[in-house]
């Protein structure tokens, strides 16, 4: 048997294209291979494919859920044509089957009740739970105004509830994806280029010649197409420069790993600017044509020499100069990656500004191999009455932070704590698709606030920690069991994707849209929910977009041509940037006018005191925050986080790999659980590192309960970004405790 490479590809193209009779397939290879029974079974098994997009993180990769006749989800495979995944999901997306099959899922609505003086949950019918929630909605509106019912949400269910809340009269809405995540970079880039970076990031990584990652740990951060394109960049021999105090996976793939001292990135970037300007390495035409404030910048960075930065960052001047030249050499096909989770040290908008300015100097915004001009198609709004105008909303709650462009979770939470100068009292809260006890720092504040609430309802798929605080818990079915809004995201070219239920909801769980509609109808907002099934909404929208649900069921993803013009700046052509000046603002008048530094400045941040280590955290490629810790498939890969400790520290404290330790932070908060040590050279001696999302408190999570430490528990001190309200979380210091601090009382 000879099968040439060319034929192999051709056949595989066929195979991926669709179903084809297994008998003919067998003949392709001749029948001289004895097939085992299992193989034959596998080959002939026909699985149903349903179009969906993934909800294990927020990259929203389009995929096909494969289910068998018994209605079990067998596997989930990326949609070939999808620009978010190019047919390849990440491990979490592939392991999405576990979101569905997890037997610990929430199964019925739960209502808090007191039995024998002890608070507990009892199972309830949907009607009872929804009636109770509806009565609270009415109650709060009458007593305090609709604005006092806040919504903290994240992901798909959030969209449906946002609609409910706005219809109800509350825009007191926030999500952790802003103040705990991307907010600062959006503010920083917006102040420079006049537009957000957005998600997915419009980084042209596949065509770049130089990728600069400042803390961004792609490869552990598994945002799919970025990981794929970084790999393409490696194939293309692009230079990768990674700035990270820890040897991240990306750092190990980089030609230059700048092992920076934590919290000093701005100094490094100022020195880079210094070198680029001093050595005339910037893109002169670009700077002249498209930017404003170059002279001020030049003046500003004059003294920020590599030698100056060396003293701060511990990165050698030669390294700084060499990497600056590498970037300039590759320009404009260079990306100073904006990162994504950027709420680090409280001066994060300014750090993002520094990244943006570097991109401006090197002329990479709007250039091939730099940042492309992204585009998306807008999905028509399903008709509904006008939303009422709330008396106050998230903007008012966050008024202290002039450039906040979304609700700030921590500010909304503070509003729940009564005080005489609290103008925006929050009295009830709905939490949907966010595990706030893990994603929002300062547990004390959170518990104090929750304590004051008159009512709290949580919509989740799992009995996560946050459900333990609720008065009512509603079980949502997983993304594999429901319709959801049409995905339309910014990319090189516009595209949409649909989510269609692959199987019926397990247990007594219901889709988020249904919950929103049920509550809405019960509180007299039926006009906002004029459909029996969300399917009708999608059908209507798809029709308007020149397609149909029928077509989308077959293709999953539909592409549209660009309308906004070319992806990159056209050589020599005028381009108006959406800033006040119409130019890239190297010097920001807007910031200046608001009383902030017009250009970034390095400020020193506190360092760990003797015996303490800076708590650094990040992602494991196999997990998403706290949501996958109990996922049977993914838990099998990584069931707990580890505490990375440098061998020098291990020697001083006497730690061994595998040993269990506890942590206590600068505010004397001791971790509830222990964590196993990993002694490794990959981490600096002044920090310890762990993956975020472990250390679950809820016993109902049979696999995840008590495994590892919850980093958020140790984050009691936040450094708040004065510009947009982000909560910097990397300024917490911990000491390592080798004896169980919890067992003392017993004896």
């Amino acid at each position: 048997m000879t099968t040439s490479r060319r034929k192999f590809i051709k056949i595989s193209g066929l195979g991926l294209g669709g179903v084809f009779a297994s008998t003919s397939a067998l003949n392709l290879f001749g029948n001289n291979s004895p097939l085992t029974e299992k193989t034959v079974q596998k080959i002939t098994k026909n699985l149903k494919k349903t179009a969906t997009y993934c909800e294990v993180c927020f990259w929203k990769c389009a995929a096909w859920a494969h289910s068998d006749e018994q209605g079990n989800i067998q596997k989930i495979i990326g949609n070939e044509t999808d620009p978010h995944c190019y047919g390849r999901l990440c491990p979490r997306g592939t392991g999405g089957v576990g979101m569905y099959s997890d037997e610990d899922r929430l199964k019925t609505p739960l209502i808090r009740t007191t039995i024998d003086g002890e608070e507990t949950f009892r199972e309830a019918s949907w009607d009872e739970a929804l009636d109770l929630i509806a009565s609270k909605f009415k109650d709060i509106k009458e007593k305090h105004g609709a604005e006092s019912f806040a919504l903290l949400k994240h992901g798909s269910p959030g969209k449906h509830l946002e609609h409910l809340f706005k219809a109800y009269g509350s825009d007191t809405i926030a999500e952790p994806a802003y103040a705990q995540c991307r907010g600062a970079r959006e503010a920083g880039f917006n102040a420079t280029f006049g537009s957000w970076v957005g998600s997915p990031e419009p980084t042209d990584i596949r065509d770049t010649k130089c990728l600069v990652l400042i803390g961004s740990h792609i490869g552990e951060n598994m945002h799919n197409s970025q990981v794929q394109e970084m790999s393409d960049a490696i194939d293309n021999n692009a230079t990768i420069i990674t700035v990270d105090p820890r040897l991240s996976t990306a750092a190990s793939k980089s030609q230059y790993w700048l092992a920076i001292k934590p919290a000093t990135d701005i100094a490094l970037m100022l020195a880079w600017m210094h070198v680029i300007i001093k050595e005339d390495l910037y893109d002169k035409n670009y700077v002249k044509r498209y930017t404003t404030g170059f002279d001020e910048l030049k003046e500003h960075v004059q003294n920020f020499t590599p030698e100056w930065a060396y003293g701060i960052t511990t990165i050698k001047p030669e390294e700084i100069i060499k990497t600056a030249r590498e970037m300039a050499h590759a320009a404009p096909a260079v990306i100073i990656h904006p990162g994504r989770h950027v709420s680090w040290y409280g001066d994060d908008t300014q750090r993002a500004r520094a990244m943006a300015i570097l991109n401006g100097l090197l002329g990479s915004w709007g250039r091939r191999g730099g940042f492309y001009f992204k585009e998306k198609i807008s999905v028509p709004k399903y008709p509904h009455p006008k939303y009422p105008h709330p008396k106050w909303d998230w903007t008012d709650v966050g008024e202290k932070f002039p450039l906040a462009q979304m609700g700030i979770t921590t500010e909304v939470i503070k509003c729940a704590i009564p005080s005489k100068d609290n103008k925006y009292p929050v009295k009830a809260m709905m939490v949907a698709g966010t595990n706030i006890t893990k994603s929002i720092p300062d547990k004390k504040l959170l518990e104090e606030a929750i304590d004051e609430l008159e009512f709290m309802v949580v919509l989740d798929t799992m009995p996560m920690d946050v459900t333990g605080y609720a008065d009512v818990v509603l079980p949502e079915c997983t993304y594999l069991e429901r319709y959801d809004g049409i995905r339309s995201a910014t990319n090189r070219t516009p595209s949409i994707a649909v989510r269609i239920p692959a199987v019926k909801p397990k247990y007594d769980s219901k889709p988020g849209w249904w919950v929103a509609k049920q509550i809405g109808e019960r509180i007299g907002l039926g006009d906002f929910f004029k459909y029996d099934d969300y399917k009708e909404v999608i059908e209507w929208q798809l029709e308007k977009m020149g397609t149909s649900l029928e077509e989308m069921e077959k293709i999953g993803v539909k592409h549209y041509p660009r309308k906004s013009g070319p992806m990159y700046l056209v050589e020599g052509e005028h381009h108006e940037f959406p800033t006040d000046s119409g130019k890239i603002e190297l010097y920001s008048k807007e910031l200046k006018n608001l009383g902030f530094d017009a250009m970034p400045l390095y400020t020193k941040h506190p360092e760990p005191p003797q015996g303490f280590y800076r708590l650094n955290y990040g992602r494991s490629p196999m997990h998403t925050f706290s949501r996958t810790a109990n996922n049977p498939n993914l838990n099998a890969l990584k069931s707990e986080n580890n505490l990375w400790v440098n061998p020098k520290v291990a020697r001083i404290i006497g730690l061994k790999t595998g040993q269990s330790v506890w942590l206590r932070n600068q505010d004397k908060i001791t971790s509830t659980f222990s964590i196993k040590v990993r002694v490794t050279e990959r981490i600096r001696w002044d920090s310890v590192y762990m993956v975020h999302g472990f250390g679950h408190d809820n016993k109902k999570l049979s696999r995840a309960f008590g495994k590892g430490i919850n980093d958020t528990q140790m984050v009691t001190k936040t450094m708040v970004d004065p510009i947009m309200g982000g909560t910097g979380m990397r300024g917490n210091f911990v000491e390592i405790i080798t004896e169980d601090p919890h067992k003392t009382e017993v004896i």
Partner: protein
Amino acid sequence: MRYAMVIDTLKCVGCSDCVVACQTENDVPIGYCRDWITETVDGTYPNIMLELKSERCNHCANAPCVRCCPTGASHIVEGGIVLVTAEECIGCGACIESCPYDARYQHPDGYVDKCTFCHHRLQKGQLPACVSVCPTKCMYFGDLDNPNSEVSLLLKNRKHKTLAPEAGTDPHVFYLT
């Protein structure tokens, strides 16, 4: 026809997607696996070498597992793929003991199981599940007998290694370094 897998360690990020994909494709019970990821760290901060690798049965040309199998359940098929026929396996464990890579495991149903190079997918003209899912596209699969196949060309043009060559098994999963 000689199937081989080539994995580029310069691109692998150790995400374990290949492990999950194998699990869902091949109904590998939770807690078991046909492929796995290893991480090797060498050096002193900040001069550190890190290597991430996806490992599995090497479909050895000189396969001790096949030799030691008393029933013939472990056998080699067209293309050099080493397979186990569940219905012929008595679960004696000899093959497990014989594999220098610990690439086999006892399926809870009793028989011994391992990577099949996704033989059933090859029959359909598809690539192995792990190869087709890998987000860094660092895995390649094809025919070594064909000098123009991607795998042949990669091995011709790039530095590579196999695992524990000293075990003398002639492994057919190659690692580009």
